[in-house]
């Protein structure tokens, strides 16, 4: 199952790359640097998904105390940190030629950096806990509270005056972009979701094997 998911991910990422560089047109205003968006936007949407799963799995763990929920939360948080890191790196690289700076303390950028630090702390908390059960409980609380930053990240471009443009995909109105750009964004989002699912299933499997090895 995980192996099939791995192959589907590779195919999905390859299709996403071909579409990003071959099918999607050169954007009129930004030029080809806009192609970074096929990496940046799917990364942040996948990070939202990952931390959403951490939130749900953490609640489920606190209510049921079943280990499978803790495994899912831990695995999802690790992937979420990776995708948030990719979001920050790709956004920064896009920002230099477009805004003239690698970084600015804009509300969207700052809240995303805070999100990254929260879940990095979540992973550190797990790694440093002497008692795994207590560590899992504390991590679940951080996973639930940390999720509150997601709506702040997403609506920061609405609530504050920001340099960062409003959301392209997750908005009530239709996306203000041409069909080929939208289709390419959605294809890459699907590929990144497959990648996330593969990483999580593999990480959950590893956590189970680690538990068996230490039993």
């Amino acid at each position: 199952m995980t192996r099939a998911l791995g192959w589907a991910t590779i195919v999905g990422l390859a299709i996403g790359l071909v579409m990003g560089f071959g099918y999607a047109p050169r954007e009129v205003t930004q030029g080809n640097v806009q192609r970074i968006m096929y990496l940046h936007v799917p990364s942040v949407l996948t990070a939202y998904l990952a931390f959403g799963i951490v939130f749900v799995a953490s609640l489920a763990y606190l209510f049921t105390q079943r280990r499978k929920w803790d495994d899912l939360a831990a695995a999802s948080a690790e992937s979420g940190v990776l995708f948030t890191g990719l979001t920050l790196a790709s956004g920064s690289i896009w920002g230099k030629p477009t805004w003239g700076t690698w970084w600015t303390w804009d509300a969207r950028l700052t809240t995303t950096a805070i999100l990254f630090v929260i879940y990095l702390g979540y992973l550190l908390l797990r790694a440093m806990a002497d008692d795994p059960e207590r560590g899992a409980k504390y991590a679940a609380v951080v996973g639930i509270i940390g999720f509150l930053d997601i709506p702040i990240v997403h609506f920061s471009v609405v609530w504050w005056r920001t340099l960062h443009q409003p959301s392209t995909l997750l908005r009530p109105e239709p996306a203000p972009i041409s069909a080929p750009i939208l289709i390419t964004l959605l294809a890459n989002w699907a590929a990144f979701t497959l990648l996330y699912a593969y990483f999580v299933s593999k990480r959950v499997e590893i956590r189970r094997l680690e538990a068996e090895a230490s039993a």
Partner: protein
Amino acid sequence: MPDNWAYVFAAYLIAGVAVVWYWRHLARRARELAELPRRKKRGTG
């Protein structure tokens, strides 16, 4: 606006390196753990 291909390739390269590194890290860890019972059985673990 100039195309800035160097920035595009840098972004994809960094993402590629991070994803491949994590993928390989998971694969290696899973392999090590899967081999553990066999090593224990042979008395070398």
